[in-house]
């Protein structure tokens, strides 16, 4: 009896030590797989918004992802008049209106192609479509392009930092 309780105690004590060690090592394993600090530190990009030509879709790079920048033409803005959802996605820098978004399809992450003539984006992977404002117009993508966190500074745009304009868009549910 006495013998048994002693072995029982030893078993439990071992269990406790091993359990603590197991939890600790799981934490270490989780953290080892986190993105490295150098990867995170490189996560900012500054764009000079004054150089973009109107109506031309330009692809920039931020955190390895393509960023679509489209300076809206007067016709494009005109076409959006009746579409408040599209207007809400416009980003004003100075007097110009831009579409800036992460150029990855919200379905499974392919890069949709801009079709200048039609003025929309087609994702060849599963046939998703987006309009010039970045809103989805044909499934499977569940939502419009995501807008990267940004801060506006004069005619510069810093991607990766959260400014008030971006925060407002997020709060209004314009982007995720």
């Amino acid at each position, binding site marked *: 009896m006495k013998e048994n309780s002693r072995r029982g105690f030893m078993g439990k004590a071992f269990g406790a030590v091993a359990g603590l060690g197991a939890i600790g090592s799981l934490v270490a394993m*989780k953290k080892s797989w986190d*993105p490295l600090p150098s990867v995170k530190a490189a996560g900012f990009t500054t764009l000079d918004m004054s150089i973009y030509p109107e109506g031309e879709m330009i692809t920039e790079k931020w955190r390895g992802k*393509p960023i679509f920048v489209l300076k809206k033409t007067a016709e494009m803005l005109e076409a959006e008049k009746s579409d408040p959802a599209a207007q809400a996605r416009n980003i004003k820098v100075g007097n110009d209106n831009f579409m800036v978004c992460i150029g990855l399809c919200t379905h499974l992450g392919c*890069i949709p192609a801009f079709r200048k003539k039609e003025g929309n984006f087609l994702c060849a992977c*599963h046939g998703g479509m987006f309009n010039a404002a970045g809103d989805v117009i044909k*499934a*499977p*993508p569940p939502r419009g392009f995501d807008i990267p966190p940004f801060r506006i500074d004069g005619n510069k745009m810093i991607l990766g930092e959260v400014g008030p304009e971006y925060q407002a868009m997020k709060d209004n549910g314009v982007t995720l």
Partner: protein
Amino acid sequence: MAHFTKATSVKDWLNQRLAVETVEKVMASEYWIPKNINFLWAMGMILAVTFTLLTISGIFLLMYYQPHVDHAFYSVNFTIMREVDFGWLWRHIHGVAASVVFLVIYIHMFTGIYYGSYKKGREMIWISGMLLFVTFSAEAFSGYMLPWGQMSYWAGMVITNIFSLGSLHLDGLVEWIRGDYVPAQAFLNRFFMLHVFLLPLVIMGLIGLHFAALRIPHVNNQDGEEIDFEEESKKYLADDTKNSKVMRFANDFLSKDLMVVGFFLIFFFYLVFWHYSFALDPVNFDPADGLKTPAHIYPEWYFLWSYEILRPFPVDIGLIAFGFAQVIFMLLPWLDRSENTVPANRRGKFAIWFWVMLVDMVVLTAMGKLPPEGIFSTIGLVASLLFIAMWIILPFITKNEKKA
């Protein structure tokens, strides 16, 4: 300590220390195989041989492969293919085997389904086999990343995005899996580790389990006949080999196994030397570019059917359907409610179910390869719905099956 006597031979010396004779009996000379099984039962041996070929060719590729985003592509396409003597041979063997192994796995699987080899007492064989299939899929996928071509990169992008689980938006989880915002160095290194170490280790363990699962219920046979292995093996050992329903694995059955393996190897090396290109996607001969998606993304042929089940639906439903397709085969022993362990052709409705399922998967495979437009989308959608419906009705059509 046990009692040791002076050894009379090398074998005796080993036998006293390692019980080699017992091992030999269990593994080969008294491992009993029913006599009435056809060449489809040799697929297991073919898989073992193919896995060996993959391992050996993999070892040789490993000696020059560079798991670095700037060098991986050239180490494969230039160093291994052009500079290393016979480097092309290892790559072709590896690439062709990786593709052919799935063909054989599917034949192996459908043989099991046709003859009811997953039933009554053989459930563990089926489950361990399906676990092997899943691990092989992960192994194939991680290997596909390593040449770091366009398809590698974008397949990596798409598949890891699946882990954001649609509307749950677990982007943090996706970034954690990749170790970066997009597939990059951390991603390449960890898939390299998975491909050359962790997953092969798991596969070897599962192969062990798969074999062990066979030892007690024994292998099924063409008629689904319940054989008393104890009785039959006694007859065999008493030299009544003619009336016994079983035979030794080695060297009796092995001769047939190896003959089928021989035919397979001729076919295999024919592909390796003359038709290796079917296993190498042309898009993957462009180096990875994170700013350009290939016009049309599709996986290797062996994943097309489950990819097609994901495709025609909105994202969440698609993911659920995809998850369904991944696990449902595992549940087959319980979804098939009939007691009959006989070939499908003697089971009435189940025979129809079997062939419709097979054809449906072929259709899904074909649609997965075609661009998702117009009539192809519609056929894909119908085939996906049919696939799901088939599994739902399976318990009902098998429940009232007459005793065959």
